[in-house]
């Protein structure tokens, strides 16, 4: 059996089990759900959070004795 014949055969078999999908429109307008998703997006990690994290790391690097105290309070 040639490649093309094999492809035709499998295409026929597939279409008999899984007919082409003809209902190609969503049942409802999806924008309200999209808008909800947009409104619930997680807050971005902004410059303030980045600066705070950098300050904490610097403090821990210069004053390692702070580590047990911070761990105790966590």
């Amino acid at each position, binding site marked *: 059996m040639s490649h093309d014949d*094999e492809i035709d055969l499998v295409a026929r078999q597939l279409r008999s*089990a899984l007919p082409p999908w003809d209902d190609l429109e969503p049942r409802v307008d999806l*924008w309200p759900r*999209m808008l909800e998703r*947009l409104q619930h997006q997680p807050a971005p990690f902004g410059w303030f959070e980045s600066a705070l994290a950098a300050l904490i790391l610097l403090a821990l690097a210069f004053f390692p004795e702070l580590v047990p105290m911070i761990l105790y309070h966590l």
Partner: protein
Amino acid sequence: MDLLERFAGGDVDAFETLFRRHQGEVYGWIVRLVRNPGVAEELTIETFWRIYRHRQRFDAGRPFGPWARRIATRAAIDHLNASAPVWTVRPPTAPPSDPDPVEQRELRGCIERAFVALPARLRAAAILALVEERPYPEIAEALGISLSATKMRVRRAVRALRARLERMGVGP
């Protein structure tokens, strides 16, 4: 500033216009791949979410539709990889040529099981090319691979499917 430039700049109104303009096309593409309307709706939202998040990567000088279709295809393949298929199985539109409906149903079941066992990226290529009969260049663009790689992928899917069907006792 045109619509695509406003979208790339983060304008939500421009995004809404693009969403309303393309949601049908994106949904239609996804439902062909996942064959379940509820899942296709979820994945349409997921696709546009990815589009919105990656809007800065969008080249406003290029058409929006093919870019959206590529992201939709990625989302659909991710879904097919992650979950067992929940397909809405519909009876064929044409009457079966074989008079024995039970035998026909069993045969269709074998074909469906063999198909579902294929890797998701082979399934996607095969369903678009062989069932939905989409043009190969369109499939290649959606999969983000070359035309020859697309044809190769379809051939690999056909070979794998034939081998599985033969093991199940389903001949030509």
